[in-house]
């Protein structure tokens, strides 16, 4: 009696565990979410930021609509379409209506030409169709400025053109041209970027890297040695933070600073050639935000150090200096110090065959806008000048190294010449060789400016996006800069600080786009109809062949025939 019951119990338990296993398998299977899209692309989002609470940039990150091309009929409703637009198909009306006036749009995917691809930047661009590239650059700059300064409430993404996207776009254009834009009922392509709502970045940090190369203290010298500061800001800002590499603004400045540090470290390593000036190198962050980082760096200085700074040279945009460099100052040109600096630079420039001009821009203390780095020094009563290839002071968030500032457009020779100019004039001042025709960093010597060093660092900078709020404190690039500077100078320090409260940034800068080819609802319904009729035909055929036609008819007329049989 016991055994059957135990057996039944055991069997029941086995069934129950079996059912739970089955249920688990079903749940697992239902949760399998494979990415089965026909194309997956890396896309870079338009920046989203606020200035004092005023929103700018694209406020949305996720995307889930049908794709359309630029061949849409004017006036059609695009609020549920994502428009894929290669750069060369951008036209004025589109930009004005959808970007500036804010007409509703499902989303925007801008395709950048292949030559702007970051990976291609290692090869120096050919000179073929350079006017085409110049036009493209101008177009990109304009577009970038418009995008940065508008508030857009749909998602804007950038991607590079490649074969997959080209075929998809060609397909979409064929459909659009035939007057069949993709919607839920007509099939086509669907673009999906799944991303959570972008969150504010809490306290974005800026990191300043400073290097100290002490000068030769003579035996009887009890005074503090004078210091010369060489500064460059290394971070960028652009429409696409994932693509803002800023080769010229300010990659060239960073490269120049590193090369000057290398040259002077060679000189200072030997006590016989060590100059009687300390050298302070500063790689500052927060450049686009009114040189916020420089200000915080200077404020952190010891009073004595600040007073010992003879003058500061700020390096900016050395790569566009083919037509000559400009020295920007905030003290009037008649000032003795300014005269001294400019004289030193122009003497060397004459020998090198470069043109240098002097530009004076007065500081308005009440205006928070800081256009040049030297102005932060001047506000603290330190003589400073900026050496730059730009002749006009840029506006806020202009010339900050967006994606149009590519390796293609930086001239290595210009950077080499500018570095030679600054280094030579500095050296002549330090070693008291003013007015003498002494080539300290002469070519083909061990002290020559090294173009390979400049090229390799320019290449590295041109593949590293460096928007400050997205660089963490221990970002590998910052560590690399620190290590490189440490190779040349005696002491390296990092200073971390927070960006001024005026700017707020949002995350989610790089995402993946999935392009699905979807069939329309009508197709599914049609297929259901066809299959239903097929199964019904099959059923009738089988009934007829195996049981006879009468049986088929009887299936539909069973109730009346049975009643008839009964009545009869």
């Amino acid at each position, binding site marked *: 009696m016991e055994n059957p019951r135990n057996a039944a119990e055991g069997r029941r338990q086995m069934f129950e565990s079996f059912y739970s296993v089955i249920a688990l398998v079903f749940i697992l*299977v239902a949760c*399998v979410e*494979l990415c*089965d*899209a*026909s194309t997956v692309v890396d896309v870079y989002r338009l920046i989203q930021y606020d200035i004092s609470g005023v929103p700018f940039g694209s406020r949305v990150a996720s995307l889930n609509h049908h794709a359309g091309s630029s061949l849409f009929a004017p006036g059609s409703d695009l609020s549920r379409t994502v428009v894929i637009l290669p750069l060369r198909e951008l036209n004025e009306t589109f930009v004005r209506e959808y970007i500036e006036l804010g007409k509703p749009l499902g989303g925007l995917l801008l395709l950048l030409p292949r030559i702007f691809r970051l990976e291609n930047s290692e090869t120096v661009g050919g000179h073929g169709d350079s006017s085409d590239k110049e036009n493209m650059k101008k177009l990109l700059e304009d577009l970038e400025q418009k995008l940065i300064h508008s508030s857009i409430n749909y998602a804007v993404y950038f991607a590079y053109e490649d074969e997959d996207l080209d075929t998809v776009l060609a397909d979409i254009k064929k459909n659009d041209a035939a007057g069949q834009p993709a919607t839920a009922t007509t*099939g086509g392509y*669907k673009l*999906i970027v799944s991303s959570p709502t972008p969150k504010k970045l809490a306290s974005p940090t800026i990191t300043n890297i400073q290097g100290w190369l002490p000068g030769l203290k003579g035996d009887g010298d009890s005074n503090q040695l004078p210091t010369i500061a060489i500064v460059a800001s290394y971070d960028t800002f652009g429409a696409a933070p994932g693509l803002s590499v800023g080769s010229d603004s300010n990659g060239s400045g960073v490269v120049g600073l590193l090369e000057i540090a290398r040259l002077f470290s060679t000189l200072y390593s030997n006590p016989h050639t060590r100059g009687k000036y300390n050298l302070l190198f500063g790689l500052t962050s927060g450049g686009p935000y009114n040189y916020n980082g420089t200000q915080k760096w200077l404020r952190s200085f010891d009073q004595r150090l600040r007073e010992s700074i003879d003058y500061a040279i700020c390096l900016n945009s050395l790569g566009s200096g083919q037509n000559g460099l400009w020295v920007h100052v905030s003290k009037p040109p008649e000032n003795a110090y300014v005269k001294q600096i400019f004289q030193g630079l122009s003497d060397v420039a004459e020998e090198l065959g470069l043109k240098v001009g002097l530009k004076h821009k007065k500081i308005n203390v009440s205006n928070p806008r800081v256009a040049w780095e030297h102005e932060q020094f001047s506000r603290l009563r330190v003589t400073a000048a900026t050496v730059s290839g730009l002749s006009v002071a840029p506006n806020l968030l202009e010339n900050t190294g967006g994606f149009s500032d590519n390796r293609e457009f930086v001239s290595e020779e210009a950077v080499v010449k500018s570095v030679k100019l600054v280094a030579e004039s500095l050296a002549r001042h330090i070693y008291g060789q003013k007015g003498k025709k002494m080539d300290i960093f002469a070519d083909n010597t061990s002290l020559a400016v090294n173009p390979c060093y400049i090229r390799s660092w320019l290449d590295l900078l041109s593949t590293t996006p460096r928007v400050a709020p997205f660089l963490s404190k221990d970002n590998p690039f910052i560590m690399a800069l620190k290590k490189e500077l440490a190779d040349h100078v005696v002491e390296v320090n990092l200073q971390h600080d927070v960006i001024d409260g005026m700017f707020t940034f949002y995350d989610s800068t790089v995402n993946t786009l999935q392009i*699905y*080819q*979807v*069939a329309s*609802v009508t197709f*599914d319904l049609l*297929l*259901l109809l066809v*299959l239903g009729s*097929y*199964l019904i035909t*099959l*059923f*009738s055929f*089988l*009934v007829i062949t*195996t*049981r006879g036609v009468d049986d088929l008819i009887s299936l539909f007329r069973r109730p009346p025939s049975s009643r008839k049989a009964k009545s009869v």
Partner: protein
Amino acid sequence: MTMFHFFNCAILTFGPHAVYYSATPLSEYDTLGTSVKTAVVYLITALVKLVCLATFLKVSESDSFDPSQEVLKALIGFIDVAGLYFALTQLTHRNISQNHKFQAVGLGWAFADSVLHRLAPLWVGARGLEFTWDYILQGLEANANLMLSLSLAALGSLMWLRKNKPKTLIPIIYACAGIVATMPSITSYLRWGLKWHLPEVVGFQMLTSLTMALISWQLFAACQKPSSA
């Protein structure tokens, strides 16, 4: 709408089996047990085939057609036939006529084949957003496979269960059975050796299965006449 597509493909792949069962007199004679037992036999046969394939087959790097490997695969495919033989003869069926026995066995065999080979890809693939024609073609393949299984079961029952057959028809029966049994090898040769695309292969399968079904039907009817006469 993607569950919709999955539903469509599912009824294309599995619908005909259900329709066949309900439309023919099989349902009246309650032959479901036979079909279930045949499905189990198919499962065991598939496992045995897997083990043999894993033991004897070399994994080739390229997608090319290797004749010796294909011959080996065909030989292992004959295990299928052995399994069908087992299902037809050895399983104790209730007293159902031969006519219905082979239909039930064929149906069970084809249903198990469809479920094992086509349900998992369908579930995982047809539910996604991306649209491909693959699953519809797979459903058509399942239909062709149903007809082939039924023909094979019919020929098998003719070969092993029927004792008195007209002498002239015997070689034809064996020849047709041979063709149907080697159909999988022929299909894979077309796909990998001649590099046909999937729609063409499926079309070929449907055509051949129709012809074989017709031929085996005629043969079965021809063998039935003497006993009924």
